[in-house]
């Protein structure tokens, strides 16, 4: 990416676009990848509220896929997932395996 020269910078280094961090993908940080097993999901949304990276897509109050563009693979969701009848709905697997 071509970097801007000093004449093209916003005055006072103010960031003019709110939420522009969406353009910065953090998914490549991940060493472990969460896998969602839909059949064990009770839609409690605890994974969504506890996710520090806002990396779980929810639509109309229903959990969808992980947002792997941003998920850093911390594993909080997998640890906190109550699952269905003792069967966890999220498991962590090593990236690249």
């Amino acid at each position, binding site marked *: 990416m071509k*970097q801007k020269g000093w004449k093209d910078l916003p005055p006072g280094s103010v*960031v003019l676009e709110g939420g522009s961090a969406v353009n910065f993908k953090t998914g490549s940080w991940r060493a472990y990848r969460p896998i969602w097993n839909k059949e064990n999901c009770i839609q409690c949304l605890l994974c969504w509220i506890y996710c520090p990276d806002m990396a779980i897509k929810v639509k109309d109050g229903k959990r969808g896929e992980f947002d792997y563009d941003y998920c850093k693979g911390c594993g909080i969701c997998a640890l906190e997932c109550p699952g269905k009848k003792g069967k966890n709905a999220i498991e962590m697997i090593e990236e690249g395996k």
Partner: protein
Amino acid sequence: MAKIVAVTGNEAVANALRQASPDVCAIYPITPQTDMMQKYASFIANGKVSTEPILVESEHSSMSACIGASAAGGRVITATSSQGLALMWEMLHIASGDRLPIIMPVVNRALSAPLNIHGDHSDAMGARDTGWIQIWSENAQDAYDNTIQAFRIGEHMDIRLPVMVCLDGFIISHSIERMEYLEDAEVKNFVGEFKNFLPLLDLDKPKSYGPLILTDYYHEYKRAQHEVMTKVKNVVLDVAKDFEKMSGRKYGLFESYRLDDADIALVILNSAAGTSKDVIDSFRNKGIKAGLLKPRLFRPFPYEEVAEALKNTKAVCVMDRADSFGGYGPMFMEISSALYQLKEKPALINKIYGLGGRDYMPSHAELVLNELNEIASSGKIRIVKEYIGVRE
């Protein structure tokens, strides 16, 4: 219609601030500024101005709150002196780096240690690298006029920088002088409505102030900040022109006093310039071509214009009411930088005077002018930097 009054410098500046109707002010006491903002608080309490005050718990918070208020979007003022300015130091850089036009009278006072409450220029000179515009004032009238002009300069859409208006502690802040007030309506019209620029309170366009900028862009941001400073001189002159139309009082980047044909000259800031002018007159009466240059705009410093004004002199003394220990006085460094670009330079010496409110007497100016006269004829400099008015 101008109104002639007898007031202290602090009261004069408090009135200039009131006439600009700021939206927010931060107030914290420190000698000798205290009664300026005290006066301002009484304006608020008596409904003379609609400013919302923040009665902070320190000058650090004062400048922090001013930055928050100014970024929110509106006209913001505070005032300080000495240790208070020193405590703000960190935040001064942030006010200018964020390009926020906060207006702040600085009632100049010595810095500790030892503790001293009287006037010298150590405080504001210590803040010269903070990215603020600095305008210095000889007397109450200057301080009043400069404060009014500061709003137009700092808030100019090409500038958007904070401004310090400096005046000497006690000598000016607490002495009663005869001066002229402008009408409230005139000042209101002159200063104009505050124009918003990237206000935080604009909810529809959420902005983030104060990002982390690393090696990839920091250098560019500072280059851009330098560029803004290069535009200040012209704005100062344009504003001065408009101010002259309204008030009849003329201001420039500095004042030249009997300098045009001078062989020897003093360069001296603020109240001591007044005393020096009388002595210059008496030397002129003796047939000695003496003159004086009183800087007004210290940041950005008008190097070329100052060099031009001093180029025909033979010997110049820069009088500093502050010291850079282990170096020359701060004003001396500026003047020598300015003169260095000339092919033929006057001899240049530096006297440190009046620290911690030590009186500056006509005899001091006489001593220096006599020395300059000798240097002008002999071409020999006895010593470059020296304290005067000091007991051995």
